[in-house]
């Protein structure tokens, strides 16, 4: 026999179909009173958002306007169905277009592909002599295309700043913020013991990747990410109070601004001397040694510090809204 309607409606397949069709999980036959109540609530919400700081008196409700809005919302539902369908069709079309496009692209990795031209040849042949690095990727991003990387580091910086605008609790907000006991959790034996072992290892590994960026795969971005992960692990195990003893807002500011300012100075020096054909006074050193490749090593360290700060700042801001 057929199932009761309620059971039928809770089937996954039905709910999936309704999701695809863009229907909401509310009954479509809303009584006018119920609708009115909903609208009142939304009105209040709107007033609060828009006019809160203006301290305007509440606007008188107009029953006619609500009836109009009722019609609007039922219309919206129909529109929404068409909308979801069209979005689906559009996605299929774009996927088809891109697959069609791939068929005409040069074969990946083939020797006569246009990407194997004089540019990559120059990077591979003269790279070591030009920049003094063994790992050519680092040489390319930090010397040949130094300006792009400088911009990319600022992308990370500005991303943290944007999150700060949104989530940073400062001044009045900070005092009003509810105290969350989760921020300084009860000591968790397993986590703390593991962290005591792991954090030093992770940090040392991060520093290794950072310092060896010009010799082996790695560099500022990856090393910084590993170090940031180490900081986050420490914080998760020991809480904000303990982390704050060595990594608080002041330290964060100094590290972040210091590294970016030094990076900017180095980049200015590199680009200015390069563009004006002034000989650089920084020696490239012996290829393969740890202290070699001129300014790439300091840049790698600065980028690493910036990336580690960014990683930790994201975690701290989303978790607590501060350091």
């Amino acid at each position, binding site marked *: 026999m057929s199932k009761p309607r309620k059971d039928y409606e809770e089937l996954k397949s039905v709910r999936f179909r309704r999701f695809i069709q863009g229907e909401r999980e509310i009954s479509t036959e809303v009584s006018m009173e119920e609708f009115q109540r909903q609208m009142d609530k939304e009105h209040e919400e709107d007033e609060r958002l828009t006019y809160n700081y203006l301290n305007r008196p509440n606007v008188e409700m107009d029953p006619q306007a609500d009836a109009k809005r009722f019609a609007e919302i039922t219309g919206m539902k129909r529109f929404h169905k068409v909308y979801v369908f069209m979005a689906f069709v559009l996605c299929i079309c774009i996927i088809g277009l891109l697959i069609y496009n791939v068929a005409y692209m*040069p074969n990946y990795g083939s020797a006569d592909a246009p990407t194997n031209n004089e540019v990559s040849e120059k990077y591979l042949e003269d790279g070591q002599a030009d920049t003094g690095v063994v790992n050519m990727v680092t040489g390319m991003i930090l010397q040949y295309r130094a300006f792009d990387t400088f911009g990319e580091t600022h992308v990370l910086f500005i991303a943290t700043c944007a999150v700060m*605008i*949104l989530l940073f609790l400062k001044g009045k907000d900070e005092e009003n913020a509810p105290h969350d006991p989760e921020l300084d959790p009860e000591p968790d034996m397993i986590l703390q013991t593991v962290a005591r072992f792991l954090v030093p290892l992770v940090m040392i590994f991060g520093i290794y990747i950072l310092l060896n960026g010009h010799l082996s795969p790695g560099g500022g971005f990856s090393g910084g990410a590993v170090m940031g992960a180490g900081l986050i692990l420490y914080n998760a195990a020991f809480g904000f109070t303990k982390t704050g003893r060595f990594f608080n807002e002041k330290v964060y500011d100094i590290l972040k601004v210091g590294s970016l300012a030094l990076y900017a100075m180095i980049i200015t020096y590199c680009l200015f001397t390069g563009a004006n054909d002034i000989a650089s006074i920084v020696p490239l050193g012996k290829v393969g040694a740890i202290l070699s490749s001129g300014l790439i090593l300091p840049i790698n360290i600065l980028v690493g510090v910036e990336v580690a700060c960014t990683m930790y700042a994201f975690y701290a801001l989303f978790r607590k809204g501060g350091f």
Partner: protein
Amino acid sequence: MDFIKNLAFFSILLPMVSGPVSSVLHGKTARRLSFTAVGLSGIFSGILLWYTLYTGEPFVYKMGRFAAPYGNEIRVGCLEALVALAFCLIMFLSLLGGLKFLKRDIQEEKQNLYFIMINLLLASLLALVYTNDLFTGYVFVEINTISACGLIMARGWGRNILAATKYMIMSLLGSGLVLISLSILYGITGHLLMSNLHESIVKIMEEGTYVEPLTVAVGLFAVGIAIKSALFPFHAWLPDAYGYSTCSSSAILSGLVSKGYIFLLIKFFYRVVGTDIIRATGVDDVLFAFGIAGMIFGSISAIQQTDISRMIAFSSVAQIGYIYMGFGLGVEMGMIASVFHILAHASGKSMLFVSANGLSEVSDGSRNYRDLRGSAYRHKWAGAGFLIGSLSMVGIPLLAGFTSKVYFAEAAMNAVPVKMIITLIALAISTILNAMYFIRMCITVFTPMNEQYKVEGFKGGLTYNLSMACFIVITFVLGMLSDPIFNWISQGLSQFS
């Protein structure tokens, strides 16, 4: 090499350095630093404009020891310098005009964060203008997107966060399409530098290999930029983003952010693909159709608004439509008219947003047009600015908007007959629609008010009045002394290819 050539690099670097430094300063110091950086970058751009006009030819500046195509480089011509100068100037005036609202709208502890966004936004705009390398362009498109998001949500209302989310989603979609397009282009040419790309693309067209990927790449790039600059069907994020953010943010977002992307698209058309190939792919026809649709529908949406900021925001959709319509005409003159309209619209729209905020300030903070009645008498400078800006947007002679409309009409005369007729009709309809909402709003704000609305002891503030006066002067200058600017633009565009 002349030392002056370094100034382009410095004008990008200066705001880029002062951004991070602002993050440890107090709001007030950060503000001063920011004003200094914007002002100095503007002065540098002005000197570069003089220099490029004096020498009569553009120059490339290699960023680092290694010449392109191995390293990065930027290119400075008179068009780039002119646009950079205009951007710096308008950003300075928008900040100056919105200073009072900034102090009110944004938490004091977070004001230095706001100025980080301003600094890096300027750096990214200048880099987009000067870059000669598509990938550098993409990096700065990212900075531009994030800082624009920061500007939208700086006010911290629920609606701002909603608007910023909308903007983020749409804008990242645009960035994604641009990035896919760049990877396809790199795959079929092996270059990222604009001049090398152009050589390879000409070769591709001659040999007939990889024509399909090239078409797809050009299409994706154009659509990506169109989404980011709110061309008509992709404008859903725009009214909220412009309408609810703080005064300076609205002015800067509407005036500059979308224009930076459009300028990158112009460079892509001229310096990367070449206008002949663009016309052969038919991308310009599509942009023409969307531009015309934007001109009409943007204005129709603007008529329906009761909120003054949202009205001005929807008018932006129409004006962006004009710019794309100029691209699509397929003649040199159309492009010149578009570039001129970029300048005219950037200054006009920023002025309108600043003045609208002034008007609503003296009307109890409301932005509904019923409450704005008579507000021009309460805040005379804002009223004057709004009147001049509106008339310019409608296209009254002597003002910037009129000149660009004349250029568009002239360009239409040179285009193919079908496009000519459509353009002229659309210009006429759009002008009438513009007049319908702008003149309505002007009449409302200039209708004498009753006594209870009077604001006791109100003063506009020196900075606000100063910025308004400068905006009015710029509108008149663009309207009446347009000939030299027209010549610089056409000289710059001819040096592009």
